[in-house]
């Protein structure tokens, strides 16, 4: 366990150092995604990381996700996805509380209780069938509702697109996750890593078509992915409120 924590710290330090070094060589036009200005001072470095990630994806993640899709029935994949989402409930509820979103807190709590008890430990999403839909929340979104901006855009090795705010949020969520703490305190780290692995597999499978489409239909995949990531996060921060998510205003050119 101590060894784990040490190597994790080392990983973060190396990343931080790399980003600092990369920042020394930039001076360019501001990037806008709609009305939002996106800082990408590490673009050169980020592009390198994306290229590395694409390589890993091509030889490992994507083939495994495709194999998973081919080898399992849809019902199984939905069950696993529901189960993994249910495990995230404590983190989601905690973040909704911190955001002052009482309705969301009530919904997520109801979801956790219904799906855990009546949905066989969360493999059935009965709550969604009943109209209480899953709402992903994380500490990055919480920081955003507190007024913290995106900060520089970063591409993290293996994990992919993020911003400094969102990656800090991710670390906080991972650190305080009660399930992780429980598993670590009871010497069941194996289950924790199993859950992480299953999460990666599920998410990569979910994104197969979306990323395929974006790769195929963009000329500069890096720029398109950056734009899509920022927009998607913005929609999540606004809880997909239809009043606020309508894309950019499009001028009338005539």
């Amino acid at each position: 366990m101590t060894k784990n924590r040490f190597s994790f710290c080392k990983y973060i330090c190396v990343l931080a150092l790399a980003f600092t070094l990369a920042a020394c060589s930039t001076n360019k036009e501001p990037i806008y995604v709609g009305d939002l200005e996106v800082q990408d001072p590490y673009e050169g470095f980020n592009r390198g990381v994306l290229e590395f990630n694409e390589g890993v994806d091509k030889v490992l993640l994507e083939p495994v996700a495709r194999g998973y899709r081919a080898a399992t029935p849809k019902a199984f994949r939905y069950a696993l996805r529901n189960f993994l989402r249910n495990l995230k409930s404590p983190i989601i509820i905690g973040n909704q509380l911190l955001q002052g979103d009482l309705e969301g807190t009530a919904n997520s709590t109801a979801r956790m209780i219904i799906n855990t008890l009546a949905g066989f430990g969360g493999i059935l999403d009965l709550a969604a069938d009943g109209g209480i839909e899953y709402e992903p929340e994380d500490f990055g979104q919480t920081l955003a509702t507190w007024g913290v901006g995106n900060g520089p855009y970063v591409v993290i090795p293996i994990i992919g697109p993020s911003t400094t705010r969102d990656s800090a949020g991710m670390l906080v969520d991972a650190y305080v996750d009660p399930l992780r703490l429980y598993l670590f305190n009871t010497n069941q780290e194996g289950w924790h890593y199993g859950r992480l692995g299953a999460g990666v597999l599920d998410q990569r499978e979910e994104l197969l078509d979306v990323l395929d489409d974006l790769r195929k239909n963009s000329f500069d995949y890096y720029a398109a992915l950056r734009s899509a990531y920022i927009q998607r996060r913005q929609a999540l921060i606004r809880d997909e409120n239809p009043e606020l998510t309508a894309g950019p205003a499009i001028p009338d050119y005539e």
Partner: protein
Amino acid sequence: MKNKRMKLMSLLTLAAVLIGGLSLPSIQAQALSLAHPAPEKTILISTGAKELKHGAQKFIDNMGKRAIEFLGNDALSQSQKEAKFKSLLRSSFDLKTIGRFALGRYWRSATPAQQKEYNRLFENMVVRVYATRFNEYSGQTLDIGTFRQDGAKDTIVTSYIVPPDGGEKIKVDWRVRNKNGAYKIVDVIIEGVSMALTQRSDFSSVIQRGGGDISALLVHLRKQQ
């Protein structure tokens, strides 16, 4: 230590089974009644179709129905479907406006000849991209949701692509513009990601990295044809 933990776990399991067993029927009944809310019964009396109040909603609904009609028609060949789909796209989308938005401020610095070529290449690209997307059609339906006005001319129509097998639906918002009484789509927003804006980000990066000249983008567009 281990024994104690085992005992605790079995106790917890027992408690869970008990609580679960006792509350399962009632919660499940509740969840099921939530899943099938009462208003459905009234549908039997009414026509069965959801009432669409706004013209833009009807426009999107209509387009979806027409697309599904021929996409799901096995009597048509793939190329027939594609031809029908392309003409539906050209009549429903305001491709000139979308293309101009995607080019952003570089429109002004382009020569009239470049603008003309860009328009032609962009339209072909969008039609081809959407045609390949819809080639993957496998029985989904388009469920029309709410609408809201945005500015004097635009209406945002929310809809959901519903897969036939009970999978997760995808939220699609359409920015529909009323142009002299005729509706045209000027943006498609999938799960919060605007296609026009993503394209604009892509294009402007290509142009910037190509030295700020639109011809860098035209090279890419020509290759795609």
